[in-house]
């Protein structure tokens, strides 16, 4: 009995007014696999993430999660079955504190988010989890700080913490290292290497250090099509990839 892939995309196509953005994209992530998704700006990576997480509907094709067809499911339902995502352009609860941000993620994850009373006994453990989640990404000292007053690097870490706090089976990260310093990027790699465990990862990232450090396999997207797929060694040796992507990076 072979295990169902955690994520399976079948012949995804998507156009905007400006023309086709994704064409015939097929992608399969085995359970526990860590997949890097790279490609030049405008290749359609964020669009693909939106189609996976429910932010956009594909024009054609289907999305399967653990064997279940989820193509028409709303974002919140996909989250509840185990898909968590971060955002290329930070999207946090800016005027709330770090504590409140994590609380939003954890109350929901524990199914306590619509409790119409103060169940102290049930809510107290949440506060411990909030503190732990913050500690994990090095935000333990700024629990009380308003998020939009924090340095950018800390906001990035909070973004990841919100995703990890909900223990999703599939973690989808859209350029988590964008705008980070070298030291912050190394911290991010460490954090993901230690905290991901056996979760399945789909990582969109421009920083190749991050991609190579974290990916078992890499998919290259170019003009909305899958250009290549393989192990990090295969991808770095692939001449097409070097030309359209890595070459551009080195230029």
């Amino acid at each position, binding site marked *: 009995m072979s295990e169902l892939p955690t994520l399976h995309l079948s012949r995804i196509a998507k156009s905007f007014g400006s023309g086709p953005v994704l064409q015939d994209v097929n992608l399969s992530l085995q359970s526990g696999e860590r997949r890097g998704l790279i490609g030049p700006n405008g290749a359609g990576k964020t669009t693909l993430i939106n189609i996976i997480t429910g932010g956009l509907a594909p024009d054609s094709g289907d999305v399967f999660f653990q064997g279940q067809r989820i193509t028409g499911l709303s974002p*919140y339902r996909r989250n509840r079955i185990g898909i968590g995502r971060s*955002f290329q352009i930070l999207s946090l*609860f800016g005027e709330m504190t770090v504590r409140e941000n994590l609380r*939003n993620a954890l109350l929901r*994850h524990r199914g306590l*988010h619509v409790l119409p009373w103060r169940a102290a006994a049930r809510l*107290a453990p*949440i506060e411990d989890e909030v503190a732990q989640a913050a500690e994990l990404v090095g935000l333990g000292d700024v629990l*009380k700080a308003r998020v939009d007053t924090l340095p950018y690097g800390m906001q990035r870490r909070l973004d990841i913490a919100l995703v990890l706090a909900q223990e999703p089976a599939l973690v989808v990260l859209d350029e988590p290292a964008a705008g980070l310093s070298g030291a912050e990027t190394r911290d991010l790699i460490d954090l993901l290497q230690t905290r991901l465990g056996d979760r399945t990862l789909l990582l969109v990232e421009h920083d190749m250090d991050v991609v190579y450090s974290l990916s078992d396999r890499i998919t290259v997207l170019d003009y909305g099509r899958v250009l290549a797929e393989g192990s990090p060694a295969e991808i770095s040796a692939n001449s097409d990839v070097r030309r359209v992507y890595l070459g551009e990076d080195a230029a």
Partner: protein
Amino acid sequence: MSQTLLARTTAADRGPRLSSAKRAETAATVLLLALLIVAPTFVSRSTVNDLGQAVCLGLFAISFNLLFKYSGLLSFGHAAFFGFAAYAEALLLQSWPGLPLPLLVVGTVLSTAILGLLLGQVCVRRSGAYFSMTTLTIGAFFYAVAFKWQGVTGGTDGLDSFMPQNLLLLPRWSLDNPGTAQTYWLILAILIPAALAAWALLEWTPWGNAVVAVRSNEKRAAFLGYDTHGVKLANFVLSAALAGVAGALWAIDNGFVSTDSVDLSFSTTVIIVALLGGSGWFWGPMVGAVIYIAVSDRLSALTPHWQIFLGLAFVGIVLFAPRGLAGLVQSIWQRVLTRRGRQNV
């Protein structure tokens, strides 16, 4: 973990640093409600009459602010729910004159909540100006119905001489004299628990946390698993239900219902009242209503053009005290505290 820690680490707690603000807010709540309850013992009878109007208007403004403050939705037609409740109650009483008061109010509020559920489906799909325009249209529609459907609503004459006879647990009380302290307290006996329940729900529970999270960042909330449409819809229904309580009590207090209660200008008045008192505090709109009634009463005795002055005062508040009068008092209080703190050092 100790009991006190448990009590403090609840959902609505904004962290230890702000919990003193939360405590001050609770104290202000208790003070405001206590003042409203004891007021009839030291004011004149006509003032009691005004107060009855004010608390109903205040609850209505609170219901408006439930959407405005907690969901970021500005309703331009909220009188639809207030008026619907007032008419529904009058019609219920026409059909069953012996209906006990609690049943009458529950039936009225329930039907208003159902109306909120139906209309909310449409309204909360969009936010911003679209939401406001949809509610405005609904408000206009309900006014037109009240105005034109004379056979049922009495048209411009409205519906009068309705008086709940059956007060159930209070056999010796009567509502025959609107404006008495008895009527006022009876109204408060329903109004305060309803408002307190909404306050507790939104300020102290995970549910309130969810409503605020959806307002703060709807997209992120959705990708964290919040049914954002459902959350906004439920808050819309609660807002309609509270407006229903206000309309039901207002009709009891007045003994009649007229198109004034569904008028579009009443939907505007409630916005002014809420912002006057301060939309940033749950109870701000209640403060606004008391001041609005007091000031408009005095002004209307002085000049027939009182609404112009009221409008100017409102513009002044918006310009110079954008957090309303409650916000103004709070910042003055805070300044006093910090000054005292400095002297103590």
